[in-house]
């Protein structure tokens, strides 16, 4: 069991590190202009100048992947900050204080939970319009319920612990107990949840951009590249496969890391 755990963490770490390095490279160095079209290079195959070839507009696919995965990372991180932040806050307050606030919030969370997250995001986008920041907001709202539930159940359990009662006796305020005493103890559950949430955000963003209601051009996005490439799937499968694999590698790395962490958290 221990060996497999290490193997998980290793492969996950390498994949995640590789993808992060790939995205970081894209921030500082782009081999070509991601939007420069070139009719001569239309559907160019693999070559030294264009390692993954060119797409239907003659744009370099590798360059577009560098830019697209950066957008994907930005949206996923933004989603985690919005959804995880608000969700944790709601879960912590309702779980700790309980009472009528808890009842009301949980009913609202239940109602939100009835929407598949992509459907909820679709509703928000249909109200606000598409675009990078609206997608962050939409997915963020869609992800609040899952975080709130996990954090709430932790607070319900932890607020009965002796150290919380001790802190009360010493005279700590409620907010100090919530954020300084209890919050660090939820991390073993919160961090894997955040990582799984990150993965779901990557997948949801890619799905929405694929449907054309996520990130809008000229912003490149992995999901959008896939939907553009699908038209030419028959003749040029590579154009679809490369951005798809970038998504898979990013998600796989994170899920292996989350798995390794969860197993570690279970043991102690």
């Amino acid at each position, binding site marked *: 069991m221990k060996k497999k755990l290490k193997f998980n963490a290793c492969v996950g770490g390498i994949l995640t590190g590789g993808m992060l390095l790939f995205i970081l490279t894209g921030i500082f160095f782009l081999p070509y202009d991601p939007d420069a079209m070139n009719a001569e290079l239309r559907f160019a195959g693999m070559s030294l100048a264009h390692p993954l070839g060119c797409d239907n507009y003659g744009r370099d696919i590798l360059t577009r992947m560098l830019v697209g995965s950066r957008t994907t990372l930005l949206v996923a991180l933004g989603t985690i900050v919005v959804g995880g932040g608000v969700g944790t806050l709601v879960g912590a307050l309702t779980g700790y204080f309980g009472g009528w606030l808890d009842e009301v919030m949980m009913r609202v969370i239940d109602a939100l939970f009835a*929407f598949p997250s992509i459907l909820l995001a*679709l509703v928000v986008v*249909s*109200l606000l319009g598409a675009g990078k920041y609206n997608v962050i907001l939409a997915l963020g709202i869609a992800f609040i319920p899952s975080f709130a539930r996990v954090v709430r159940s932790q607070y319900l359990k932890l607020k009965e612990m002796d150290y919380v009662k001790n802190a009360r006796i010493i005279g700590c305020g409620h907010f100090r107990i919530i954020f300084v005493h209890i919050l660090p103890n939820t991390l073993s559950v919160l961090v894997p949840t955040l990582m799984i949430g990150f993965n779901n955000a990557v997948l949801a963003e*890619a799905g929405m951009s694929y*449907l054309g209601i996520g990130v809008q051009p000229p912003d490149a996005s992995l999901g959008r590249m896939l939907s553009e490439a699908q038209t030419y799937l028959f003749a040029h499968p590579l154009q679809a496969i490369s951005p798809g694999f970038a998504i*898979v590698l990013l998600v*796989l790395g994170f*899920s292996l890391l989350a798995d390794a962490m969860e197993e570690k958290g279970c043991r102690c």
Partner: protein
Amino acid sequence: MKYVGRKILTMLFTLLLVSFLVFLCFTVIPGDPAIARLGTDATPEAIEMLREEMGLNRPFLVRYADWLLSFARGNFGDSYSYSMSVADLLLDKVPITLAMSLMSIAMIVVISIPLGLYTARHEGSVIDKLIYALNQVIMAVPPFFSGILITLLFGIFLKLFTPGGYVSYTTDVTGFLGYLFFPSIAIALPKIAMTVKLLRSELIEEKKQDYARTAYSRGNHTGGVLYKHVLKNAMLPIITFLGMAFTDMIAGSIVVEQVFSIPGIGRILLTSISRRDYPVVMAVVVCLAAVVIVVNGVIDIIYQWIDPRIRLEGEKS
């Protein structure tokens, strides 16, 4: 019975809340439906008349109650862009999405239970490790990408189906199901991987319990104990998981319908969003949410029927 009654009441309340949230969202958005219908160069009098006719000038809660009552009667209003009633528009799309979801659920149950049993029984073997690795990879592939890969492999290289060649169920039922088979795989794949993983860990956990040891010590066969005693207990969390997975599968089918160009509920939802055809969007969203709520509620009820401890605990508190 008390439990079931309370469960149904909670479900109804959640449904009410969902419909209220949706109605609120689509009312506060900027943009006047009357102007949208008449165009921006209509005279203010004409707009005012249409507003009166559409009932837009009444108080918010009155409009909500009105909408809810007609919704409950199956009257979803009229579509802005198709000039037909929303109910008619959606009715012939429902079987398509339904058939796809049912096929995926069937695949999940048929494939993941034997695999889960096998991996739990041969824990630590090479095949177990291989399946673990495969599960992790499959979970990372979004349904639309696996849809594209399936199109590439089965549609273009092996020519088992024609990509984009959707057959309507009114003309040819076998062709219809045959075409939906591949999108269903794309929807089911990640869920199969998750179910196998969950079932394996549940089975291994249950296998260590005292009752399993007792069953072994009385001379029962390893497989027999696993199938007759352990599987029953390990299935409980799986049923809950499948209920939650159902939610994701509805979402997945919206995307996968687009990959395989299937004119189902997802397609109509997307075109309605881009055309700002809000009655259709509202109807689809509320109906899908209702399906999810009802499915999860029914699963909760089944669950307490299988495991009476949950009911007793609920009545105590």
